[in-house]
């Protein structure tokens, strides 16, 4: 954590219709943000299985963001509500088993909110950079794996 050159890996699971399009808009508007984020496009945040988040941490992510349409704007009517419920539960589960839940983020970014996307990514990146590498997760993961 004392590593000043640490660059976090951020994974963003986003829906195709709002956040992915909003992120495209940030691009077409030539807004700039930090390059740490890797986006995974899904049709809807409702598609996001909590296992994706586990897998992301396991694959070296230091922070995970879930982002979809604003409440009421879901392209598929209610997928984002399912996503939010799962996210809240999953975050509590992380806390329960002693994993730092503050590395899991959630946001609503619409197709017209390119600027908001930029702000969200910069904020998430800064927060995770400050928190340092997610070594806790890897340590716990290793212990569990070794113990079968």
């Amino acid at each position, binding site marked *: 954590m004392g590593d000043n050159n640490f660059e976090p*890996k951020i*994974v963003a699971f986003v829906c195709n219709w709002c956040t*992915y*399009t909003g*992120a*495209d808009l*940030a*691009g*077409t508007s*030539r*807004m*700039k*943000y930090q*390059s740490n984020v*890797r*986006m*995974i*496009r*899904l*049709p*809807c945040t*409702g*598609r*996001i*299985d909590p*296992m*994706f988040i586990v*897998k*992301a941490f396991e*694959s*070296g*992510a230091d922070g995970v963001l879930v982002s979809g349409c604003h409440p009421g704007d879901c*392209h*598929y*009517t*209610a*997928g984002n509500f*399912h996503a939010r419920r*799962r996210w809240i539960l999953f975050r509590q589960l992380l806390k329960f088993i002693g994993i730092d839940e503050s590395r899991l983020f959630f946001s609503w970014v619409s197709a017209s909110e390119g600027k908001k996307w*930029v702000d969200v990514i910069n904020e998430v990146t800064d927060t995770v950079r400050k928190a340092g590498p997610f070594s806790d997760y890897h340590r716990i993961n290793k212990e569990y794996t070794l113990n079968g």
Partner: protein
Amino acid sequence: MMRIGVFVCHCGENIGKTVDCPTVAKEVIKLPNVVYAIDYKYMCSDPGQNLIKQAIAEHKLNAVVVASCSPHMHEKTFRKAVSAAGLNPYMCEIANIREQCSWVHDNVEEATKKAIDLIRMTVERVKFNFPLSEIKVPITKKALVIGGGIAGIQAALDIAGAGYKVILVEKEPSIGGHMSQLSETFPTLDCSQCILTPRMVEVYQHPNIKLYTYSEVESVDGFIGNFKVTIRKKARYVKEDLCTGCGLCTQKCPIKRAPSEFDEGLSNRPAIYVPFPQAVPNIPVIDRTVCTYFKTGKCQMCKKVCGRDAIDFEQKDTLITEDVGAIIVATGYKLYKIDKKGPDSAVKGYGEYGYGKYKDVIDGLQFERLASASGPTAGEILRPSDRKQPKKVVFIQCVGSRDPSKGFEYCSKICCMYTAKHAMLYKHKVHDGEAYVFYMDIRAGGKGYEEFVRRAIEEDHVKYIRGRVSKVYEKKGKLIVKGEDTLAGVPVEIEADMVVLATAIVAQPEAAKLAQTLGIPYDKYGFYAEVHPKLRPVESSSGGIFLAGACQAPRDIPESVAMASAAASKALILFGNENLEREPIVAKVNESTCVGCFYCKKVCAYNAIEIKELKDKKGNLIKVVASVNTGLCQGCGTCNATCPSKSIELIGFNDEQIFYQIKAL
């Protein structure tokens, strides 16, 4: 064995300036299963696409990753190119290195690293893609039109005229809608019924149109191209096949004093009635809330006089099901009734104008009936209280419109024009009368509209006063209208004989209920929402359901007719195809592992999950599993994430694809 080709686009300088494309190509060719990688200036250009096609043939590629702009931009282009080279289009994936990489980062080293990461993730994903083909869904080439006003009539005639069957459902006993109540229409002063009734008759006689009046849509199942609609045909207590429309029953009915809906309460009708003489169909209905027989069990006068024995007091509502491929919603509007608080508590009403308290304070539709030759006064302007000719009439605009504190924020759009028309008609009929109009602004955008208002002011000498009215009260047989002239900056008081309020156009009271039945969104006022306000103004967000007329927002006649024809053409575009083709991104059930918990059914917003019974050869039930109706499934994947036994997967975004994409971080 996967043989993947990666094509890195420079997009001129758009990508090439920030991402070192040659390095990217050199790096990604090292990835397992990548057998070919190349960078090129414009991958979407013809030579670029040819490059992909040639490489597929030369290197026997069975999957392609194009690193370029957003998939929203050129995914279709590249899938088409891949398809032209004989590869399944769904074996092509896009890595977005423009909108989400080169355009948002400055540092070449960082952007290049990110581009390589994104491509690596996409390469891992594409390994688990498999060939897919578009889903074909057959189309029932028959339309349902809900609402028989001018919009519904126009839509029905257009579709029927193109040779397709139409079911037209109208909840009132006759088609015609509000337009049939109007005296004249702006800006031409055409007689409304003279232009409308021939169309009503045309609907009735058209061999392709099946008309259900006094009927409502009870339920709608299915999806675009394949709706199943249940229509409730309310009991008329008159057998339609026997009635000749002679009218004897309505003449002999002893009840004479039920308020006429058609005349907006300004005249009375019997218990068995036809709404208006030109009604289509010309078949009466019995209003059982006022009928003596239904109240006391005695009378049956209508039955006695009917020579065809068409009266049937025992008639029940009937439910009819129809299969249709498209639905046009044209349910129109209502006028805001200002004497009472609306169902929306935000509506405070306008008690100070005395509507409902003073007989001579009327609304716009009531004035239409007064001015109409077929109305209660045969077109003479006589005020309701004492049937005397009013010599001074005050028209108040924007009652409930553009007034967030007491009514609605929106502009009702047609009131400026119809008030000018009312004032003009009044002056044409009462030459020595005075007409005053209180207005906020005059909104007369439309062909010939501004000229029309100018004509009312300059030729017919209607006095326009800019300002609001604070109070209307009665004093010595006069209605005192107190207001303000904001241009002169003085208070105004007019002793009027009659006051006409241009009340707001509101959504039908049952609009939200119908929207729930249809599964279409509506705004906070109950007006139906179009999918895009500029480019798709007559489509609802539910496929195959289109909008026409004032159910979508306040609309005048020409706009309603234009929308109706547009909606009809949308339905006809659909009917022009034998099958609907859609992306094969739908859910699929693994029946061997499904345990039939139906969590997927609970979370599905489209009712796409069906219950399927698996039986052995002898017909014994083995188990119950979920099954996906691919016509209804929209491909959100919520079921996939919900399934506890991982037995339902979203094709195109399945678990392997996503997991391996994540693993390649």
